[in-house]
């Protein structure tokens, strides 16, 4: 029984420019990890490398029970077990909440089967997810008629409908106000804790990261420069994370040094 996701020596290059450099990272079952870093540090790339929306140049992924990701089939299984939440929520605005959340079930059915209404199991699961983000009364409302916070909750419900082992959230609160941000993040964290889902969430706000992250990863210029609990996150380290010039010193953190929560 493998209880963690391991990234081993991951490198990502776009042409000549290096987006991620020798990333080593473990994320344990049920852990809520927050990713910090300035724009362009590689936060999105790291998230999208895990489900390989961005191809990785070299390195190895070891995904919970699936083990090493070797081929297309493994990748498809990894994606089925990985829910993704986007900054711009990436929903079909003219479809209803229910229809959008049901797309989280697509990976579990063939094309032909998915043209017909999905089985009752999937429909009830989708509604259950909608209920958990407190939007059941909006289930038949078109997404474009919802507020930003509600739309992001639909995004969470869609990710949840996959019954995921892992949720990747790419700046899920970047376009929300502080109050709604708290709502969305605490909802996300509660659900992850209850279902023992691991989460990797990139954020812009340090205070949010400190409040919600079981662990914080600091990313700068494609490298991990901090990996630890929030109370270890000193001003010095923050300066390092958000430094604009490429760091010359090799930062050495391995997941073994991290105390599990």
């Amino acid at each position, binding site marked *: 029984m493998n209880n963690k996701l391991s990234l081993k020596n991951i490198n990502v290059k776009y042409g000549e420019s290096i987006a991620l450099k020798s990333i080593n990272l473990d994320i344990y079952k049920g852990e809520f990890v927050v990713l910090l870093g300035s724009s362009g540090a590689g936060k999105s790339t790291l998230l999208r490398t895990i489900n390989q929306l961005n191809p990785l140049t070299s390195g190895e992924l070891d995904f919970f029970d699936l083990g090493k990701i070797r081929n297309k089939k493994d990748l498809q299984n990894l994606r089925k077990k990985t829910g993704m939440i986007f900054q711009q929520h990436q929903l079909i605005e003219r479809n209803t909440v*229910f229809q959008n959340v049901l797309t989280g079930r697509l990976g579990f059915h063939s094309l032909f089967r998915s043209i017909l209404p999905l089985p*009752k199991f999937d*429909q*009830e699961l989708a*509604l*259950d997810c909608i209920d958990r983000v407190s939007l059941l009364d909006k*289930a*038949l409302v078109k997404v474009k008629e919802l507020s930003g916070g509600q739309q992001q909750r639909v995004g969470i419900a869609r990710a949840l409908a996959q019954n995921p082992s892992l949720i990747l959230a790419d700046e899920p609160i970047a376009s929300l106000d502080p109050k709604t941000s708290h709502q969305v993040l605490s909802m996300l964290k509660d659900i992850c804790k209850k279902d023992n889902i691991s989460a990797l969430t990139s954020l812009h706000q340090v205070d949010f990261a400190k409040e919600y992250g079981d662990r914080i990863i600091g990313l700068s210029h494609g490298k991990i420069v901090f990996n630890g609990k929030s109370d270890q996150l000193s001003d010095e380290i923050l300066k390092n994370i958000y430094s604009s010039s490429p760091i010359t010193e090799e930062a050495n953190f391995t997941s073994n040094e991290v105390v599990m929560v």
Partner: protein
Amino acid sequence: MDKFKRILEVERRTWKKQFFRVLIILIFVFSSLAVVGLFDFERISTGIPAVLKLLPEMFPPDFSRAGTWFKPLIDSLAMSIAGTSISVFLSLLLCFFAARNTTINPIVYNLATLILNVTRAVPELILGIILVAMIGFGALPGTLALGLHSVGMLGKFYAEAIELCDKEPIEAARASGASDLQVIVHSILPQIFPAMADVTFYRWEYNFRASMVVGAVGAGGIGLEIISALRIMDYAQVSALLIVVLVVVTVLDSMSNYLRKSVSE
């Protein structure tokens, strides 16, 4: 679960409605196919021998008169370019009146859309015949026929692009004190330019092909050559002409693709 029941019920009804809509469309599609005789297998099967008889007559293509096709080909190209520019000019004048968000009043709006509908409704072939009768044979009536008929489509697409414009930049231009005309030139045109270029180049391509149709009724160009060869049943020459047209159309297609790409970047 009880609290889900109502939602599942509504969803099921929506799906059924959707299903019947698709079914009705399919009924229309298949009855149309039946009306035109596509399911008349007997007739289709008797047509096959005729095709088999005609095809060998088209081979090998006869290029012996190719030297005399140069001028008509240039005529056809000129017709398509001139016709398209006439329609672009007229469409630009009309489209702002035919778009709900830029028109000046409902009467003008309806008048403009009426003009667009009429020009679209009269096929270029009919326009060609009328214009040939009015001003005689040659490339001029063909060009006018293409230009007038194209206004219907170009003007409508331009107007639709205007209606789909983002309102925010328009509001911003207005807020900075721009006049209505300045808003059109500096806020709407930049937004619709890629879409306009897209349909315009597509229409140019279409007009080259249409120039052969109007050519057939005496409006000049390579179409006249094709119809003349057909009349004397010189199928070898017809196939040679069709090959020439195919080459030109392919060149035009890649050219307009290239232009479209470079404009929308």
